[in-house]
């Protein structure tokens, strides 16, 4: 298994050769950096209070209809966040934030 890993990695990145040795005083110098980050919605509570699915996941209705890509998040002025589709359904009945009962005012929509 470990051997396997090594062989696989040996093939990696063998394409770009760059001989560049400007800083002989330093033993090691960073030349290339590949950084990995994960993005998620910047929310206080990571579960949508309406459908109780994590906001990073698609809400159940969208999962059922296979619309994963369209299911974004909205923030109200109160800084509470929900799935956009959950919230729009909610607002048809009640124009208040389900968490704090303040009148709902849209702050931002995720994109």
């Amino acid at each position, binding site marked *: *298994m*470990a051997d*396997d*890993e*090594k062989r*696989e*990695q*040996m*093939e*990696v*990145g*063998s394409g770009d*050769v*760059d*001989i*560049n*040795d400007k*800083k*002989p005083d*330093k*033993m*090691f*110098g*960073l*030349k*290339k*950096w*590949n*950084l*990995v*980050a*994960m*993005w*998620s*919605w*910047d929310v206080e509570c990571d579960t949508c209070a309406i*459908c*109780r*699915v*994590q906001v*990073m*996941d698609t809400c*159940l*209705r969208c*999962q*059922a*209809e*296979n619309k*994963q*890509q369209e299911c974004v*998040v909205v*923030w109200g002025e109160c800084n509470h*966040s929900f799935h956009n589709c959950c919230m729009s359904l909610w607002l048809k009945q009640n124009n208040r934030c389900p968490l704090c009962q303040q009148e709902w005012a849209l702050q*931002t*929509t*995720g*994109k």
Partner: protein
Amino acid sequence: MATNHSRKRKGSGNNHRPSKKCAVEKEDIVDVMTDSERKPNFSSLSGPNGVNRNHASPLVANKPVSTRKLIIKNFKDKPKLPENYQQQTWDKLKEAVIAIHKSTSIKSSLEELYQAVENMCSHKMAPLLYEQLRVLCDEHVKSNVSQFLADSVNSPLYLKQMNTCWQAHCQQMIMIRSIFLFLDRTYVLQNSSMPSIWDMGLELFRVHIISNRSVQNRTVVGLLLLIESERNGEAVDRSLLKSLLRMLSDLQIYHEVFEVQFLEATNQLYRTEGQQLMQERDVPEYLMHVDKRLNEETERLLHYLDQSTKKALITCVEHQLLGDHLSSILQKGFDNLMEANRTSDLTLMYQLFSRVKNGLHELCAGFSSYVKKRGRAIVINPEKDKTMVQELLDFKEKLDTIVSDCFQNNEKFILALKDSFEYFINQRLNNSRALAKFVDSKLRAGNKEATEEELERLLDKIMVIFRFIHGKDVFEAFYKRILQRDFCRKSASVDAEKSMLSKLKQECGGGFTSKLEGMFKDMELSRDINIAFKQHLQNISSPDNIDLTVNILTMGYWPTYVPVEVHMPPEMVSYQEIFKKFYLAKHSGRKLQWQPTLGHCVLKASFSAGAKELQVSLFQTLTLLLFNGTEELALEDIAHQTGIEDTELRRTLQSLACGKARVIQKVPRGKDVEDGDKFVFNNEFKNKYFRIKINQIQMKETAEEQISTQERVFQDRQYQIDAAIVRIMKTRKTLSHTLLVSELYEQLKFPVKPGDLKKRIESLIDRDYMERDKDNSNMYKYVA
């Protein structure tokens, strides 16, 4: 009609006839009417016409050629037969029949004899004639029996004698019948109870000869002996057999006298043969033998046995040679044949087994148990993990050819193959992982190892195996993990991966692949972001010339890692911050979480032997960068300065100081990193390559990692169940519990316990996705 005919001739005056014919027919009429004064030519006309000659002929005779008018008058006296006519005629016929019986020449002409019969019939002597003939034949046949009663002759000769006698009898009867044809056609036909002359002959033969117990017995035993010796491989006189068996069936005693005994003998022979050969021969030989036997018996049917025996005989052979030995044949030889891929033998086996009742069923069961056993052996051994998938593919291909070539693509077998595969593949959860790894290695090699078409074909085959896997989501999870690693190292062959993805999508539907698709999309987006970021850097005059690329992954699509915090040099941190600012400016409402475990770098390193480039992970980078300031560092110092978690750090150091490429040295030397160990820069480092990749020491794709993958799978399953329930309820509006559950089982691609489903349903009711019907608690209603 007959009268008309003669009159016309008369009237027209053309009463001359070809003289040769007249001569013969004249003789005929003499027997009948000796007192007639007619001219020979008239008699020749009226003779054959028969029925009305008593009235017509004399009239015509009275008016010779001179008159034109034709007057018909009755006889003055009814013409009479001579007194002893009957006796005389019979004597003549009797003489002829006896001559036939003795095979000597007949004195009278056949024509004359025929005429005699006809005349006798016309004069109502038919019953008498028939009776006399019967008695005559009866005596003759009776006299024949004596030759068969003597003991002296041996069996083949006896049969020959019987055959000769029978043949003679037939010939005689045919001859006699020809002479007495008129009797047959009139008298016998009118009396339905009378057997025809031929049948009478058969009856006599049956009663007098064959029904004799000893004759019958000897004949049948002789026949059976003859057949048995043929079965033992000797050449026998088939025409004799055929003729005698025809005799039996003509006499209508074939069935009761011969067939029953014959089948009994066959049964016995093949029972012993079957039992004996099963012991002695191995399976292919035995099957060949059975095939040979069946062919022989079929030939026997063709050559001499009566067709009515066919079914019973073949069934008997099949039963004794195959039916009774099905399971032992399978036990003894099937696995070996499969193992050795003996297609011709397997084909034969299939053909033979398909002949007997339950044969294919047994064969199919044997087949499926072989597949299960063999497959399990491939799957269950963890040491074989590396080769497992390839072995499975080969195994599947081999079985497919066997099913199509040997088992005629029988649907039962195809199904059995499928079921067995499904059974053994799911014996171990780990198979999903192995398959995912295999797919990955093939895809990564991509076009290097195989052409695109070959790769496509391979993927198709893999999909076949994939279809059998129950926990498809487990596969997905492992596949994702592998993909992630590859993406972050840019080692994936995107085309090949996409082709795999489309296959998965076809197989499992969009829901299954949506996350994988999301991953691909992330990779594409990351590329765009990097390009944009490079432009951005040029605008803001960045401090360093580090080549920074960033992969931005959407949380949720990708496998998650526990976030770790590490200390990085300030230049790196500031760089990271520049990117973060840039990114968040473009995307509102998001936050970024760095994944140090996944990052990797290229380091320039200068050793006394020359400069090198090192490909290392981020953790390795952080560790190595510390050596820029000092010569020697203790484990604790490094831990403090980098903030890398302890076991992770030890592994990192191990890879740098104890691996193949030792860019730093551990003091004291040793394989494992212990507390208090010190590390120094290895200035003497040599390597023939300029670019060196220092591998991280992987914890054998750790139990921990596996567990976390499986946990994630479990989590995902909950959501999938929920989504499926909502999907179903949304279309159905109301549905009973049982129907909902059965639909769920259809939709879900992984095994679930009913109890778990119930829990999910309860939870959805709690969350107001649906509700119970007020009147019937077993009904659910969708809540919009």
